[in-house]
């Protein structure tokens, strides 16, 4: 680990959700760098430095991934499979974002080694709860989250 700074990658197609999440981060005093991609394919490109994300400066390996399940081009579940299959990315904690409590989606993502999930809308409370579940990780973060 080159740096202690915790980088967060958000894969989310919905602009409103992006705004909500950014706000929740802000309200929780989480100021860590947030990188946003808009679908599963872009997420993988970012992680594996492909296409527009070739530059490691602008596309560093994140320490946490927030992954929306329903996205165009490639959905979250498929992207998660790829992430978990690659040895460079498989240890990165992933929080799934979902609009429903669809048991199937949730169960499937847990099977794929998801660390937590948040039912949208992402607000102050559920974000803190989800982040709380991966508390261990946040111990290395400069400013630990309010739990």
């Amino acid at each position, binding site marked *: 680990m080159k740096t202690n700074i915790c980088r967060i990658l958000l894969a989310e197609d919905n602009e*409103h*959700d992006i705004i909500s999440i950014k706000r929740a981060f802000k309200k929780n005093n989480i100021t860590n760098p947030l990188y946003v991609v808009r679908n599963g394919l872009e997420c993988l490109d970012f992680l594996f430095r492909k296409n527009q994300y070739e530059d490691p400066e602008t596309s560093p390996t994140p320490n946490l991934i927030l992954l929306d399940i329903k996205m165009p081009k490639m959905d979250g579940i498929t992207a998660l499979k790829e992430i978990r299959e690659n040895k460079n990315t498989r240890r990165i904690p992933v929080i799934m974002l979902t609009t429903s409590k669809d048991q199937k989606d949730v169960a499937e993502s847990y099977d794929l080694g998801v660390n937590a999930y948040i039912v949208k*809308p992402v607000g102050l409370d559920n974000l803190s709860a989800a982040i709380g579940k991966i508390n261990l990780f946040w111990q290395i973060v400069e400013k630990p989250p309010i739990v």
Partner: protein
Amino acid sequence: MKKVKFKKYSDLYYLFILFFIIIISVYLVLGHIEKNETYQIKENLESILRITHDNINRWKKHRIYKIEIIASSHEIKSLTQTLIKTSRQSKIYKSAVDKIQVYLQPKLNELNDDNYYILSPTLVNLASFDTGTIGKEYFNKEKLEKIHNIFTGNSILTTPYFSKFSKKAEMILGTPIKDNSGNIIAALLFLVPPENEFTQILQLGKVAMTGETYAFDRNGKLISESRFNNQLRKIGLIKENEKGILNIKIEDPGYNLLENSEKSHEGSVKSFTKMVKSALSEKSGINLEGYRDYRGVMVVGTWLWDNYLNMGIATEVDKSEIYRHSYETYFLITALVCIITLLSLLYGNRLKKSLKNLDILRHKLEKNNEELEKANYELSQYASVVSHDLKTPLRAIHSYSDFLMEDLIDSLEEEQKNYLLGLGKAVKQSEALVNDMLDYYRLGKLNVKINNINVNTFLDELKTMIHPSEKEKIIFETDIQTLNSEIVLLRHILQNLISNGFKYNQSNEKIVEVKIINYDENNIRITVSDNGIGIEPEYHEKIFGIFQRLHPSDEYEGTGIGLAVVKKAIDKLGGNIKLESKINEGAKFIIILPKNESKG
């Protein structure tokens, strides 16, 4: 579709078989009747002719026998000898004539004969009833020949002929008168009127209404009285004061005189009837196909020629009458067949038509059903997609209104704050509506999986999910440990009913009581009762329909879908739900669900 078509064809098939059977039967029956009828007619005609012929023969023999007895009587013998031996002017002669008269008169009366003659071998009239001087000239050549026959020792009975003198028909019955040594000294003749016994015997042989038996001579002349004299006068075959006997030549007029009496038959070439032609060639015969008689009427008949009688005898009957029964039967059966055919055709057509209509109708229904299913599917897809797509922007609006509220709450004026609160509330309602709609459509697609559910665990979980507030209280009561049902649906049902129980409730302590009990062998009963505002009985059915609300949404939250979802879920579980409630007295939902025990 195939099934119906098959049914249609099989019905027509039966119809055809029915037709076939009817037609065959009719032909068999008609054939039999005809055969039988023809045989009967033949038998009848032949036996009548035979009997008549026999009777005429017997009568002739009888008449000859009688006259022979008279001729051989002592009185006739001796008186005739006296007549021969004495002069006509002598007293003895005259007394002998008187004696003969006295002797023969009663016999003549008894026999109904007209006259008698005692003729000398030179054909001089020796004695007669009316003492006429009639002799040779009285008879024509033909008759004279016959009379000459008497003097060779034969008795005769001539066929009837028309006498110029008596102006009437007569037959000559004659026999020789012999002396004691056997020499023929004279002839005894009786004039027999043919209209008496002769005709009577023939007329006994009448058949049915239109049949007659008659005799004719070698000239083809009618020699017995006709049964149809009135008819014959009417059609002009005989004159008003004439009789048929000896006035009719048995000729075929070529057409039916009875039907065409006006028609002149002057010019037409007449010939003997088929019957007479055959009989005059001394043949007997029978014709059942029909031929014209002397009235021109189609008749069937049988005939014979008798040389001893020197006459032909025929028995005939109108063809129309003899076959009338057959015709009637034919007509009846034909009519029956026609009616049956007509009915069958009508019925068949109607059957065909209604089957066709049915087919068309079913086709339409199928098509409609397909279209409806498609439309329903599309609608459900549409609703689902719309709901789903609405969800995201609604959530965003919800979030933004929350953010604004959070950020501005301290700086806003009361009025503006209320607007923001209203916005949040409206968004919440919209979201609830969308969520409920999604529930409703999701439920339609759900595959029911029956599992064994631990009732207490299930109820505990339910309580946690509903999370009642301080003012709200849920009381559970059950007498069963486990039940078999679809847990998602069951949870949904109870969650909905319980939250309704709290929602439509203005009591200080809102209580919802849930009881799950063993109802009967096959069912469990779940009751959910509350102490809320209750529902008027007239709405008890209505509330289970989708988008049915009883209260304005600002008074009570709700989308009007909740109970529809409940109803749908219960339908899916194979159960039923009803409501017992009065206004202001709380509501009690009673659910009956199958135990589904056969599975486990």
